[in-house]
């Protein structure tokens, strides 16, 4: 049973955000991202960066077995940076510093940078957080874990080429 925070967040924060625009204008071009594919990650949150225009999540991916962090050639944690919606919209989805503490395990799809660097844009991907202290089974993501929480709408996209919405 997955919980969805969207409704609660809207009810709780609706008044405060009543005057905010429903959609947010990007303040930069998205040409750097490969919008034709999704990479789907399960990783561990390093931090939330609440920039006003675009929220960011910094995370370190877990390996396919979901029992260790992915590291670079020098053994350092490989940090991915994913751009999301505005801080206000993220809050509406229940994404805050408190709800995404360091060490939380989460899953989402990412349109990666075209040059292969560890950064990307969330696109329309769903965002799921595993229950505290739990990680998915090998090869799976948080949306498969009992008690996982969905933040906002959407599902995890399939890995690879973007498929038309049904």
């Amino acid at each position, binding site marked *: 049973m997955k919980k969805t925070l969207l409704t609660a967040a809207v009810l709780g*924060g609706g008044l*405060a955000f009543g005057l905010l625009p429903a959609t947010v204008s990007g303040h930069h071009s998205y040409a750097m991202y490969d919008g034709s594919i999704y990479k789907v990650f399960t990783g*561990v*949150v*390093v*931090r939330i*960066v*609440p920039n006003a225009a675009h929220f960011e999540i*910094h995370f*370190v991916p*877990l390996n396919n077995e979901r*029992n*260790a*962090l992915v590291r670079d050639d020098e053994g350092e*944690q490989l*940090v991915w940076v994913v751009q999301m919606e505005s*801080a*206000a919209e993220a*809050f509406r989805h229940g994404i*805050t*510093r*408190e709800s995404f503490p*360091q*060490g939380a395990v989460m899953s989402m799809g990412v349109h990666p940078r075209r040059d292969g660097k560890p950064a990307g844009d969330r696109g329309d991907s769903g965002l799921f957080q595993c229950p505290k202290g739990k990680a998915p089974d090998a090869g799976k993501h948080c949306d498969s874990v009992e008690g996982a929480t969905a933040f906002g709408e959407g599902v995890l996209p399939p890995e690879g080429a973007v498929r038309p919405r049904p």
Partner: protein
Amino acid sequence: MSGLREGLGALLLLSTTFAVSVASAQLKPLHVAGLRGAPFPAVNPPPDLGSFGQGPAWDSKPPPGVAPLDRDLFTSKDFYDDRDRWLDPRYWRCNSPRQVTDMRSGGAGQGTSDPRIGASPPASARWGDCSKDWARENIVSPYPFASAAEHYAALKADAARRGGPTRHTYETMPKWDGVYGEYLPDGRRIWNYGRATQVPTFLSILTPEYQERMVRQLYHEGINAAHQWSASYCWPEGFMRQWATGPKPQRIVVTPEVVVFLGSGSGNIVRTAHVGRELPLGQEIPQWYGDTIAFWDGDALIMHTANVQSWTQHTTWEFSYEFETVEILTPVHDAAGKLLGLDWETIIYDTEALAQPVRILWHRNYQQSWSEAGRLGWAECTRALYPIDGFATQVAPGETIEFTVPDMLDRPWAKIWEENFEQDMSRPKHEVDLGFN
């Protein structure tokens, strides 16, 4: 000619008398026992800690009667190994934090032909005055509260006992609108500038982790001249820089609903005290100047600030996400009722960084009204300096440099020191613990 001299003399006497009377009225806010306005045990603002001896003859020479340590900050190769010496003033050659950071300059924005680092740096660094210090008891909070929320609630309850909080209208609210400056009696500045206090006294107010952070900062400023000052890189200045040389609340606008503090300098400051509101004010996303609620107790404004972005202030202590303040602004008037300025008492609570709460009492002197003043200047920082080999370096347009993108919310200043100056040091490894190997 003699008449002119006499006239100037009389004018000087008059201005001196006026200055004395003004000074005596300020920095003495209403004392409510256990809550606010507690008098300082010593003179405030404190006098600067001086250099002991001037000129090259004093290179590395300690004051008479002071036995130097066999290894101090200026001879150490690894300050991490010197933890047991950090709290000995001789480790710092009795220099204040500001003296350490200015070892190679004449102060912020000033060069000098005779830097105190001496002719054979860093070992030739000169000594400060070991007999001077603005003591710890003048810095720590004199109030019994463990948290800002508790202190604020007690102040509110005190106001309630006298029929408060006061609900001001446009007609009754204090007329503080205008332009304010920094009050510097005899040129002295508040303790947070780091000019009056021995480094170990400063360190004694910090928790061990934050002691290490401050020592690290002073080492790299004093020994390597690798100052990572926020304004150098157009990084945000952070909340605490109001009480140093960062952007200050130069202008005030008062309405019954909000009191707004504005300023611009090395960065911009906008603080809004929401009168009659409660925390939280909005998203639980740290704000650079926090979220501030307030109430009026007569003509005093009492503020509580929380949700502040953790950050640094150069040459002194870093603050954490636990940082909160209580601020009490009390107007000071002359005998004729003219507003002289605001006594501004700030009690800082930060259970992660501070060993116990601390207090700053400063005064903002009223200068002129909005209509008398020039426009409110508003600067947006455009970057001229970049870290090159660990040094903030001016780079000309068209020059190509190698640049590593900082992780802005992971203490980027510390990363620069780590990568450029600490390869051979015994720095404790602080990899983020994410719960997985």
